[in-house]
């Protein structure tokens, strides 16, 4: 299998806390891979370590065949990685349109993608001139996702997209992620196991800063013991 991203045994410290103590994540090209685990397991930190926002002290992050650990975050992201952070991080002082434009990596990215964005998120079209903060939580999530693919990214790191959304909205968000996965590889952090199991083909479970199990999502759905042990779900 061809891996677009290969995280090898990374150790990350935040301050003096040894948060990640050996995480391995392999992401097959074109797939949706879910990072699963309880609250505080280290899923967000794993995404941030990939991007160099919390640089790993040990281990390797190999993206499209090149080692990127230790590079500046903006250099890593420029290689074609989009990021939807946990709490959306919409820029308050920017309008919705500016929130999209700022993600351009090549001039004109936004104009090229605009119709596609409005097809996926018809709501954003009429909100385009409003300041980022005036959006509802769901709309902010849409905007954050849209922002992650304004530039031509090959890999999207999406952190808890369903958090705080109503069930109907979650459904439409899932179809958006499916649509995006046609062109990009997606790493998805998702607490809602149902959502994760319907979207992802592969999974990695993280437990107390270590990756403890990986495989194909179909197998996990039948592995009631693992689900119970690591995810606390029935």
């Amino acid at each position, binding site marked *: 299998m061809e891996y677009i991203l290969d995280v090898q045994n990374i150790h990350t410290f935040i301050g003096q806390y040894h948060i990640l103590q050996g995480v391995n994540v392999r992401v097959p090209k074109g797939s949706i891979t879910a990072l699963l685990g309880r609250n505080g397991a280290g899923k967000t930190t794993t995404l941030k370590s990939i*991007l160099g926002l919390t640089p790993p002290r040990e281990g390797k992050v190999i993206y499209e065949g090149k080692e990127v650990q230790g590079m500046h975050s903006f250099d890593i992201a420029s290689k074609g990685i989009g990021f939807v952070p946990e709490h959306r991080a919409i820029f308050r*002082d920017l309008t919705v349109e500016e929130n999209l*434009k700022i*993600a351009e990596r090549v001039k004109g990215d936004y104009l090229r993608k605009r119709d596609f964005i409005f097809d996926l998120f018809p709501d954003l079209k009429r909100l385009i001139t409003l300041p980022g903060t005036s959006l509802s939580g769901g709309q902010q999530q849409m905007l954050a996702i849209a*922002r992650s693919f304004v530039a031509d990214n090959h890999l999207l790191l999406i952190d808890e997209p369903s958090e705080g959304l109503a069930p109907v909205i979650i459904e439409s968000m899932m179809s958006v992620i499916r649509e995006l996965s046609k062109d990009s590889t997606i790493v998805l952090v998702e607490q809602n196991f149902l959502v994760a199991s319907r979207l992802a083909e592969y999974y990695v479970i993280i437990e107390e800063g270590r990756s403890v199990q990986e495989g194909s999502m179909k197998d996990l759905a039948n592995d009631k013991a693992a689900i119970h042990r690591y995810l606390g779900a029935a």
Partner: protein
Amino acid sequence: MNTFLRKNTVLLITLAVITALFIAAAQGMEKKDFVITLLRGLAVGSITFLVASGFSLIFGLLDVLNLAHGTLFMIGAYIGWTVFVRPDTFVDLLTPLALILSGFALADVYPFLATRIRLGLSMKRILPWALILVSVLIFSFILPRYPISIWDVENYGQSPVTYSFMADSGTRLPAPVAVFTEIAAPLALIGLVLASMIGAFGLSLFNSETQQQFKLTWKNFAAFAILLIVALLTFIFNESLTAVLTGLSSNWLFLIAVVVATLSGAGLGALIESTLIRPLYIRPIYQLMLTLGMSAIGIEIVRSVWGRPEFVMPKPAFFNGTGGVCPATNFADWWANNCSTILLLDGRVRVYNEIFIPIIGVIVLISIWMLLQRTRLGMVIRAGVQDREMVEALGINVRRVFTMVFGLGVGLAALGGILAAPSMGLSNAMGESLFLNALIALAIGGLTNYPGAALGSVLVGLIQQFIIKYGQIGIAIPFTDIIFKPTPPLVPASTVLLMVIILLILPNGLLGKKE
């Protein structure tokens, strides 16, 4: 609109009270006094704004409290003065400056070099220091021997005070031409380039933990080449360039002085950020101490180069006309004679101090506003003020933006300095009081809010000037016969009082956002 009213009730009430106070203040004095005081307040506010806005841009985006900002304001004034009063010194300085900077223009090349060098761990620690030491040694050998025609602070007849005084009265004190005697010219020129490259390489080794694949192109060498060419041209054409500058009208020379001071400030700021501040982003306390130290060093440098005594800076001819119909009563008269003062409601208004400076203040206010709102750089700055990490995660080189913003902020302070010089004069202390004003203005307006910086600065300027005016004419306390005359120490106290009151009502300042 309704929600705007509801959300900002406190702000609107505060602004209404302040406006009411100013209207009340107008009742106690003659109309002409009121207008002049208002204009003076706006002028002080404009200069304060130039310092405050730069400081707040830097703080907002970089989280750096640049305590050297007032000193950089002062340095801007002294640099501008040098260009204006001693163009020959300025031209002499161009060559060595371009050479000293040339090494830093190769910043992109050093990491490439560094990856080629394989060294033991201890050598890796020592190497940067060794390089910097070598560079400092070469510099300290060449620079004192490099001939620059300059004033003499020890000798009153040749001091900045005298040069300034003569220039103000319209004559130019002849200055000796500097020639290479203590060191051969080629040796000096080549030595400076080498020392600069060695020093810049050494500094770059401090923050090069990251491994990265590089491709060098001619672009990485372009700035270096341009600086070398500039150095060579200014070296060869030194005398003719000096002759051109001294022959210029004082208006053009002033314009050049303003541009040079602003650009030097911006360049100095960019250099400070990329060499001294950058390694300390993870240690904010050290950063604070660093900027405090830079401030003290800056003042000492100014003292040793330009001396301690205060001196005036002549105004450009455009604002310095006298005689004839001056003070002018209408625009046509003023335009024809370039009167230094005009009559407004029977009061004498100094054109440079009270009209030109506020106009520039407004122009800068609008330009920076446009930069922030209409350009991609501005968009990145606004976003970065809120969430640097996310901006970086979008693939934007935040470091470069940091350097640019630091340069922009210091450039604005330097612009403030050179603009203030003809009205305030030059002194070693001019930065301190203005910096304090700027801090108070920011506390009042909202620490990282751009319109807030403008509002706070204008309020500080107005309050101070009105208190000064009332110190002269006295306030009649209602229902009594007492006439209260605020004493000079009340001037700074009044702005502090305003700040305290506003912070009690609105803890984030007038326009600051709640976190």
